[in-house]
């Protein structure tokens, strides 16, 4: 199926995931299958606790499924070794956590440069330029040298989005990227993401509780109790 996988950035089939131990063991994901094409924006919606974040961690290779397969750009990653998963995370996946996750001892600029430094494909000067451009795109051009601790929650979230875009990943996974943002900034962030999807053919999967945002995505996948409905 090479011609199909050419267009498909991410695919998962029949994912099961249990969380917790013993008595508290919960069947969180009960056979989720999903496909994301390049250049498309997907919204995953559903009530709190239905397993959206759990699924996103699995797709982002931050966690391993109990069963099921995950393919990233045509490679089966669900059970591959840590080194391969780590490399894929650095190269192909940009992840925005549900709760803004910046490194607090670093400035906004340094946070955005962090993935680039690891990948090491650009010169330091190019890294700075790109990081500044990304911060500008999320409306933080003035605050590049602020420490993360000196930014508001929404600002931190926008830095985290810029950071997820840093290495131009083919897949962007964003867990409520607009959760902490006002209407204006939500629109800014969402427009940026859709523009990237269209311009550079990235697959964007975002979890959102905002019906307006979900409505503007190419495809909406409602989720309930660990299953797409």
């Amino acid at each position, binding site marked *: 199926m090479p011609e199909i996988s050419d267009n498909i950035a991410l695919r998962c089939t029949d994912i099961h995931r249990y969380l917790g131990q013993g008595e508290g063991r919960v069947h969180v994901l009960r056979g989720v299958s999903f496909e994301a094409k390049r250049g498309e924006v997907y919204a995953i919606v559903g009530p709190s606790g239905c397993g959206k974040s759990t699924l996103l961690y699995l797709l982002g290779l931050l966690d391993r499924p109990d069963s099921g397969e995950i393919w990233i750009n045509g490679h089966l990653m669900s059970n591959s070794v840590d080194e391969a998963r780590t490399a894929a*995370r650095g190269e192909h996946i940009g992840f925005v956590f549900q709760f803004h996750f910046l490194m607090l001892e670093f400035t906004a600029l340094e946070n955005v440069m962090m993935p680039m430094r690891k990948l090491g494909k650009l010169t330091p000067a190019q890294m700075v330029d790109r990081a500044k451009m990304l911060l500008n795109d999320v409306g933080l051009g003035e605050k590049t040298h602020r420490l993360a601790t000196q930014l508001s929650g929404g600002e931190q979230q926008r830095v985290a989005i810029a950071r997820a875009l840093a*290495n131009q990943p083919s897949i962007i996974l964003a867990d409520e990227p607009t959760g902490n943002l006002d209407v204006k900034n939500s629109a800014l962030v969402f427009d940026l993401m859709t523009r990237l999807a269209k311009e550079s053919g990235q697959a964007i999967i975002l979890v959102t509780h905002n019906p307006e945002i979900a409505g503007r995505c190419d495809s909406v996948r409602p989720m309930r109790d660990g299953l797409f409905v």
Partner: protein
Amino acid sequence: MSPTLRIAFRFLTAKKRAMLMSLSCIILGVGLFIVTQATTSGFEDYFIKTILGTNGAIRIEDKIQETMRTLAAKGATGDSSFMIAQREGRKYVEGIEEPKQVISALKEFDNVAAVSEVLHGPAMMRSSFKGESVRAYGINLEDHLRVSDLRQQIVEGSLEDFRSSPSGALIGKVISERLLLSVGDWFILEASDKTGRQSRRYRVSAIYETGVADIDRSRVYLNMSECRSLLRKPTGASFIQVSLFEKDRAPQDALRIEDVIHYSARSWQEREKSWLEVFRALRFSTAITVSVFILIAGLAMFNTLAMMVMEKTKDIAILRSMGYTRQDISRVFLWQAAIVLVIGTVVGMALGALVTYSVSQVRISIRGIFATDTFIVAWSLWHYVAAVLTAVIMVMVASLVPSRRAARLEPGDVIRGTAQ
């Protein structure tokens, strides 16, 4: 700068106080290590210098005579029992009958720097004040200066006077005080043998001080010919003192000398074994005590890093999520230990050198096994190397555990733990 080193630097500043604690432990440990080694080995070195400057590196004394029993054993049995038999059956004849022959044989050894024959015997020393029993030592001054530090040990008077006058004598500081003698004073030495007793008059040419109580109290150096007349020993020597180019080879050389010339040869290490062992034990025990300090530095580092890892689990998960490997993560923490270690050892070495210098300026007066008026320190690169190595090993071992724990953290677990 590698990304992991950059992150390590920034993390360090996040836990300044704990890091400063570890840092000061390392500084103190390294500094103390150096100071204690410098002082203990300083005194040890000085003790060895005093031994070499008084009784020399090797002393040749007493002819070895094989007994009949040894000869029998030699014929009958194999190598090892033969050696033992030889040791057990060994007999000595006091003194050296043919010093000239022995000396020319000794000069064949390539590590032998100089030799001096010495004749000694008991005598009574009398001043107008009172009498003391001493030993008269007959020496050829020029030879003896080459196998000892006699020249440096003179505290009053001059060797010139001893060299030019047959009745000149060199006496120790302690005996000069006991008999109230100063340079230029006359005294009488009385020696007796089977044929009777004779006494001769000598003049104090110079007073020496070795610091070795036994020597300063009892040795009276005379010119060899004078001593021969006094002790009525026209030929032979009591012992031959040997100085070496490489003092540490003395035990091996002594064995070879015994084999070749059949006289007992005792190295300085053998003669002063008990004192040397005291010094060694002292150096060892201080090294252990101070290593405990460095161990504490290691534990402090362990503690700091373990806390750091717990506090930074989120950051670890973030880094892992953007492609940093397990190895990168453990490097972030090892770098932190390394940075603290480098600063700690450099400052610790500076502190050690500074304190060592200040200690060397402290005035204390010691007599008995050597003479000094200030604290003695040894400046050796090895003390610094040993201190740094100890610190590096302890701290790096201590940081290995937390950094590996950090590397093992699963990003998924961390995120769920904090992000629900």
